[in-house]
C-alpha cells in the first residue's frame, strides 16, 4: 500500500489554521503569476488574431494566409525546412544515442561534451559559424575561390540540425536507457544477430522516444528564429516572417495569426511527448544494457559520431576563433580589437542580460518551489489543473510569448510599470522556461520520503520546519539545477525577448543579432563568445554544486526502500 495512499491522504491532515493560510499563499502567488504573465498575454494574442479592421471579429487574418502573394510559399518553405531537419536530426541523433548507449566506443565523454556546446550559445551562433566558413567572405571561398552563396535552404537546415541535435539525442537516449537488458539477454540466448536485435528490440522499444524526438525537433526548427534571421536570407520561413510583420511592418494582427499557426505543431509535439512518457514500454528501473564486444560496430559508430559532431564543434569553434582574428578571412593575426571597438552599446547589454538572468534564476526557482510544495496540499483534481497550467508554457513558442507581451503590456494598465523595464524581460524569460523548471522540481520532490515529513510533524515541526528539514535536503539538487537552467536559458534566449528590447534596454543575445545585421560580424562573434563564457561558468558551477549536495544524499536510494 504505502506511498500512493499516503500521498493522497496528505491533504486532509487535521492542521493548524495558520498552516492553511501558508499553503494558499504558496500556491496562490505562483498561480496568479501564471495567469497574469502567461495566460493573459496568450489570450490577448489569440483574440488579436481574430480581430479584423475596426476591431470586429473576423477571419480576415487567417484568410490572408492563403490569399497573400507571399505567405503560402513561406509556409511551404517552413514545412520543407522543418521536415528535412526533423528527418536528418532524428536519424543522426539515433546513431549518436546508439553510440552512447549500445556500444563500447571510446571517448563517450567527448561526445557528451560536444553535445552540451549548442546549449551554451544563442541559437544564431550556428548560422554565424556557417557564414564564417561558407559565406561570401568565408574561409572556403577564400581558399578555393568557389562561388559561395550560403543564404537559403541548405544552410538553414544545416544550422538547425546542428542546433537541435543535442536535444534529440537526449530524448532518444532516455528511451534506450529504459529498455531492459533482459530483452537483449533473451534474444542473445535465442541466437538473434545484432542487427535483428536492433530491428526487433531497440527500434520498437524506442519507437515513442523517436517519435517524440522527431516532433520536438520539428517544433524547435519551425519556431527557431535566430538561425532563420542569420542564414535564411531571402528564403523566408514563418519565424522570420513574424519578425518582419511585427518589427518591420508593425502588423501585430498578422504576427499574432502566424503565431497561432506555429502554436499547432508545438501543441501537437507536447501532446506526443506526453503520450510517449505515459506509454513508454520500458521502466525507470530497467537494468541498463551493456553492449557485447563488437569492434566493427564500435568503429562504424565512432566514425558516425565524428562525422556528425565534428561540424557541431567546428562551427562553434570557428565563431570563437574568428572573434580573435583581425580580418577574417584575409588577415589571421590575433587581436582583441573586436572585444572593445565598434560595440555601439559597449558591454551594457551583457550586464543587463546578467542582471535579468540572475533575477529570473532567484525568483523563478523560489516561485517554482512554492508552487510545487503548495500543490501537494491540493486535492488531486485541483492539483491536476494547476499542473496543466504549469506545463502549458512548454507548448508556446518564444516568439508568441514575446508578441503576447508586447500586445498585453505595452499598453494598458500595467504598461506604466512594465514597458521597457528589466522586469518585463525577466517575467517573459521565466514564463517562457517555466515548464522545464517545474518538472525538475516536481521530480525532485518525488524523492522526498513521505515518512520523514511525517516524522518531523510528529516530533513537533510545523510546515516550515518540515519543509526546511525534511523536504529541502532532498530537493536541493533539483533547486540548484533549476536555478542554473533558468539562468543559462535567460542568457541565451532570443526568440521572445527580441520583441521586448528598446533603444534604452538591449540584451546580449539580441545584440549579437543586431551586430550581425549591421555587418559587424566579428563583433557579433566576440559578443557570442562572451555569452558562451558566462554560460559555461554557470554550467560548471551547477555541476560542482550538485555533486557537492549529492554527497549527503548518496544513500538516497537506500533511504527510500519503503
Amino acid at each position, binding site marked *: 500500500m504505502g506511498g500512493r495512499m499516503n500521498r493522497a*491522504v496528505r491533504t486532509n491532515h487535521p492542521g493548524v489554521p495558520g498552516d492553511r493560510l501558508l499553503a494558499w499563499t504558496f500556491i496562490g502567488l505562483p498561480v496568479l503569476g501564471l495567469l497574469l504573465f502567461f495566460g493573459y498575454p496568450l489570450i490577448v494574442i489569440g483574440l488579436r488574431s481574430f480581430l479584423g479592421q475596426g476591431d470586429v471579429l473576423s477571419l480576415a487574418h487567417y484568410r490572408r494566409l492563403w490569399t497573400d502573394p507571399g505567405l503560402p510559399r513561406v509556409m511551404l518553405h517552413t514545412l520543407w525546412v522543418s521536415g528535412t531537419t526533423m528527418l536528418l536530426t532524428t536519424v543522426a541523433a539515433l546513431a549518436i544515442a546508439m553510440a552512447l548507449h549500445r556500444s563500447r566506443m571510446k571517448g563517450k565523454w567527448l561526445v557528451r561534451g560536444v553535445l552540451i556546446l549548442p546549449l551554451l550559445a544563442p541559437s544564431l551562433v550556428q548560422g554565424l559559424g556557417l557564414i564564417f566558413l561558407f559565406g561570401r567572405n568565408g574561409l572556403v571561398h577564400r581558399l578555393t575561390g568557389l562561388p559561395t552563396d550560403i543564404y537559403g535552404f541548405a544552410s538553414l537546415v544545416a544550422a538547425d540540425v546542428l542546433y537541435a541535435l543535442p536535444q534529440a539525442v537526449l530524448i532518444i537516449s532516455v528511451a534506450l536507457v529504459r529498455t531492459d537488458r533482459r530483452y537483449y539477454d533473451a534474444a542473445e540466448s535465442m541466437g538473434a544477430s545484432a542487427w535483428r536485435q536492433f530491428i526487433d528490440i531497440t527500434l520498437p522499444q524506442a519507437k515513442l522516444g523517436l517519435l517524440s524526438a522527431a516532433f520536438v525537433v520539428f517544433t524547435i526548427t519551425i519556431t527557431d528564429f535566430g538561425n532563420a534571421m542569420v542564414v535564411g536570407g531571402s528564403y523566408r520561413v514563418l519565424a522570420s516572417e513574424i519578425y518582419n510583420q511585427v518589427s518591420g511592418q508593425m502588423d501585430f494582427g498578422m504576427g499574432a495569426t502566424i503565431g497561432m499557426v506555429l502554436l499547432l505543431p508545438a501543441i501537437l509535439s507536447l501532446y506526443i511527448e506526453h503520450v510517449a512518457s505515459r506509454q513508454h514500454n520500458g521502466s525507470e528501473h530497467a537494468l541498463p544494457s551493456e553492449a557485447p564486444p563488437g569492434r566493427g560496430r564500435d568503429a562504424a559508430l565512432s566514425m558516425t559520431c565524428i562525422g556528425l559532431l565534428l561540424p557541431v564543434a567546428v562551427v562553434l569553434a570557428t565563431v570563437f576563433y574568428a572573434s580573435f582574428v583581425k580580418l577574417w578571412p584575409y588577415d589571421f593575426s590575433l587581436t582583441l580589437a573586436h572585444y572593445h571597438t565598434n560595440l555601439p552599446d559597449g558591454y551594457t547589454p551583457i550586464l543587463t542580460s546578467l542582471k535579468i538572468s540572475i533575477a529570473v534564476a532567484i525568483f523563478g526557482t523560489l516561485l517554482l518551489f512554492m508552487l510545487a510544495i503548495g500543490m501537494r496540499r491540493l486535492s488531486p483534481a485541483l492539483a491536476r489543473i494547476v499542473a496543466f497550467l504549469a506545463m502549458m508554457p512548454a507548448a508556446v513558442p518564444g516568439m508568441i510569448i514575446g508578441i503576447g507581451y508586447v500586445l498585453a503590456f505595452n499598453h494598458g494598465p500595467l504598461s506604466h510599470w512594465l514597458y521597457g523595464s528589466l522586469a518585463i524581460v525577466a517575467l517573459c524569460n521565466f514564463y517562457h522556461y517555466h515548464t522545464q523548471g517545474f518538472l525538475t522540481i516536481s521530480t525532485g520532490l518525488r524523492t522526498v520520503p513521505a*515518512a520523514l515529513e511525517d516524522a518531523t510533524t*510528529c516530533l513537533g515541526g510545523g510546515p516550515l520546519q518540515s519543509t526546511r528539514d525534511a523536504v529541502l535536503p532532498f530537493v536541493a539538487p533539483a533547486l540548484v539545477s533549476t536555478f542554473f537552467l533558468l539562468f543559462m536559458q535567460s542568457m541565451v534566449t532570443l526568440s521572445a525577448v527580441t520583441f521586448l528590447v528598446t533603444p534604452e534596454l538591449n540584451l546580449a543575445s539580441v545584440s549579437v543579432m543586431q551586430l550581425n545585421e549591421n555587418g559587424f560580424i566579428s563583433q557579433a562573434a566576440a559578443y557570442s563568445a562572451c555569452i558562451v563564457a558566462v554560460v559555461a561558468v554557470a554550467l560548471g558551477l551547477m555541476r560542482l554544486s550538485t555533486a557537492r549536495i549529492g554527497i*549527503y544524499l548518496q*544513500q538516497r536510494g537506500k*533511504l527510500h526502500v519503503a
Partner: protein
Amino acid sequence: MHFTVNDVSKSFGGRPALDRVSFAVGERDFVCLLGPSGCGKTTLLRIVAGLLATDSGSIMLGARDITRMPARERNFGIVFQSYSLFPNMTVAENIGYGMKLRGLPPRAAAARRDELLRLIQLPDEAGKYPAQLSGGQQQRVALARALAVDPALLLLDEPLSALDARVREQMRGEIHQVQRQLGIPTLMVTHDQQEALTLADTIICMNRGRIEQIGTPRQLYMNPATRFVAQFIGASNLLPTSWVREALPTLLSGRPAAPDHHLEACLRPEDVHATAAEDGEGTVRAVTFLGSMIRLVIDWRGRSFTAEQHRDCTLKPGDSVTLDVRPDRSAWVAA
C-alpha cells in the same frame, strides 16, 4: 486506561478502510496491530498519530479528547520502516531535533542525547551522518529520536521490515528491552506474526478494516476467535462441525452452542500426532523437512491434515499411520 480509541471509522472515496475500531493501550503496554497489508492497520496508526483525520469516533489520552489535536501537538514518538532520518544532520542532531523544536536548554538536551546514545548502544557514532550507518544502526537512531521527547505514546510502523533477517531478530530484542526499561506505552504496526507474538503484551488482529480479536499472544494462538485469526497466526487444521461430529466426536465437548455452519474446530499442526501403524487409517502424502521440524501432510477419514513433528520422525510418503488428537488443545472458531 492510558490511551483509548473509540469507534473510529475512516473511508477513502467511499471505500471503508476502518470500520468502528476500538481498543486501549495501558500505561506500560506494548500493543501490536497485526494484519495483512491493506487491512487498515497503517491507516489506524496514522489516525492515532494525528497525521490523518478520522471520519467518526474519538481518541482519548487519559481523560483528554485528542481527536482533533494536530499531530505536532500530540507529543507522540514515531518510527517508520524506512528509517526516515534527516540525511544532512548527524546522529546527534537527528536525536536532538525534537528537543530543539521544544526549546530545551542545550545542556539538558545534550545530557538526554548522550543517555539515549548509550541506550541504543551507539555512544561513539554521534558525529556520523545517517548514510555512514548500517540499516540497523539507522533504525536505532530513529528510535532514539522518537524517545528523546519523552513521548506519551511510541508508535512503530513496521520498524523492522526493511532489515535483514538476522539484524531484524537482534533489533526485535533491543526494542523489547528498551520498551521494558523505559516503560513507554507502545503501539506497533506489523504484518509479521512472529514479531507480534514475541514483542507484544497485547495483539490486535485486524482484517479488512475491522478488529478480529484482541488478546495476549498466547490467547490468540491457543484460542483464536475466528477462522481468519486461526489462519493468519500460525498454521491450523480447520474442521467443519459436521465432519467433527462423525469423525472426531471427542472434540465436541468444548463446543459452544451454535448452528453447525457457524463454528469450525481448529487444531494446530503440532497438536496432531501421527504414529506408524500397519493398520492405521491415515496415509502420509508428503513430508517436508523444516530444520527443527518435519511437516507431514496426512489423509485421514476423508480430510487432509497438516501435522508437525520432531525431526527424528522417520515417516515416508505412503506410510500408514494412526492419528492422535488432544481434545483440550482444540479451539472452536467462527467460520
